[in-house]
């Protein structure tokens, strides 16, 4: 054959290569490829899990944020309600205190009025007695204009002293 081509040797080369191809495929190519495939799948699985985990985390974060927002709103509402309740209560207390104070004042005024009247009544009785006494005295003594004037002065002074004494008693009480 030209170029030293030999069909037997071609077949021997083919046999050699087929043997080599089979051996390399089963000893190296397939096991390494299988390993690479497994690792690729492992990485893909991990990536998928990470993605799912990230999505779950994001979901939880959103949920927590919503809860926090709701809690904040609830706290604000409760605070507002408490403030309103406190304001109402304080207003009520003030109103009651004012009413009580007004009642006390009214009672005190009434009592003072009663006492005043009582004092005036007792003063009038005493004045009457003084007048009766003075009249008796006047009638018993000689009545002169000087004496008369002195009696009136005496009467007025006694009346003033009595009133002053009553007032000081009342103030002390």
């Amino acid at each position, binding site marked *: 054959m030209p*170029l*030293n*081509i*030999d069909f*037997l*040797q*071609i*077949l*021997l*080369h*083919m046999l*050699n*290569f*087929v*043997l*080599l*191809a089979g*051996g*390399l*495929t089963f*000893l*190296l*190519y*397939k*096991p*390494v*490829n299988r*390993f*690479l495939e497994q*690792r690729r799948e*492992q990485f893909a699985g991990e990536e998928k899990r990470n993605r799912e985990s990230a999505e779950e985390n994001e979901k939880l974060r959103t949920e927590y944020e919503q809860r926090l927002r709701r809690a904040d709103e609830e706290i604000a509402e409760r605070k507002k309600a408490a403030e309103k309740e406190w304001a109402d209560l304080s207003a009520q207390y003030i109103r009651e205190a004012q009413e009580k104070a007004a009642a006390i004042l009214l009672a005190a005024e009434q009592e003072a009025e009663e006492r005043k009247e009582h004092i005036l009544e007792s003063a009038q009785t005493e004045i009457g007695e003084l007048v009766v006494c003075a009249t008796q005295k006047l009638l018993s003594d000689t009545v002169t204009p000087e004496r008369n004037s002195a009696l009136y002065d005496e009467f007025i002074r006694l009346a003033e002293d009595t009133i002053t004494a009553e007032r000081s008693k009342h103030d002390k009480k």
Partner: protein
Amino acid sequence: MERNAMNKKRRNKKLIFLAIWLAVLAGIVVGILLLWPPGSRHENIREVMRDGVLHEQNKMDLFGLEVNPGLISAYMVTAILLTAAALIRIFTIPGFQTVPGKFQCMIEKLVEFFSDMANSNSHHRPRLVGAYIFSAGVYLFFGTLFELFGIQWPTASGVSMSLPAPVSDINAAIALGVLSYALILGAGIICGGFRGALGVLKDFSLPISMSFRLFGALISGLLVTELVYYYVSLSFVLPVIVGVLFTLLHAIVQTYVLTTLVSIFYGEAVEPKPRKRKNKKAKR
């Protein structure tokens, strides 16, 4: 300061003297070698190069059969590769880690390279062609590098000679070309039936072109190497560049070319072809 400058000058002078002395010595040696008669050779350059291409004279014995040295190299390369593969399969692959070490990384990269090439060039049934181009690539690459080791083997006439690359034998190149074509044809028939086979058969020149491209590329490198090795005068520095770099470059380029071509033709063969609908209305 002055003493340092003096020392520097002396050192420079010494270096210049040494360089001149070495250059003169090298010139004399080269001259001697150029004039040295190649009388000790038992065959001339023409015979060496003819034998390098055709392997007509230096046959080797394989179980009583006289064969080309390339066949012995092929079986030796196969034995070495299969042993290495078995050792890797037994000792390395079971201990593969998720985060690879250097050796694991190299093995993974090697497999991945051919696997990716198969996947990118043929989108249908890429596993078969992936395994094939992996084997062909490894065989071609290491087979071409094999000649660098210069393993000596006795010829049938009793003379010892270094074993060449397996594909420098035209029979090996034809075998590889025909096998590649058979794979493509087989895949075409499996995937496309009769139409698929026709599609592949129209490229009947493929095995011839593949074989001779491979053989031509390998043999050109071999001839240049033989030429360089033949003359003693060219055996300084040059063989390192020619021998190592040419062989390495050939190994890489031929591996890449053959595997790419096979995967592309395979991809075309297995690609599902859309059926042409007969437009009856238009005919009417």
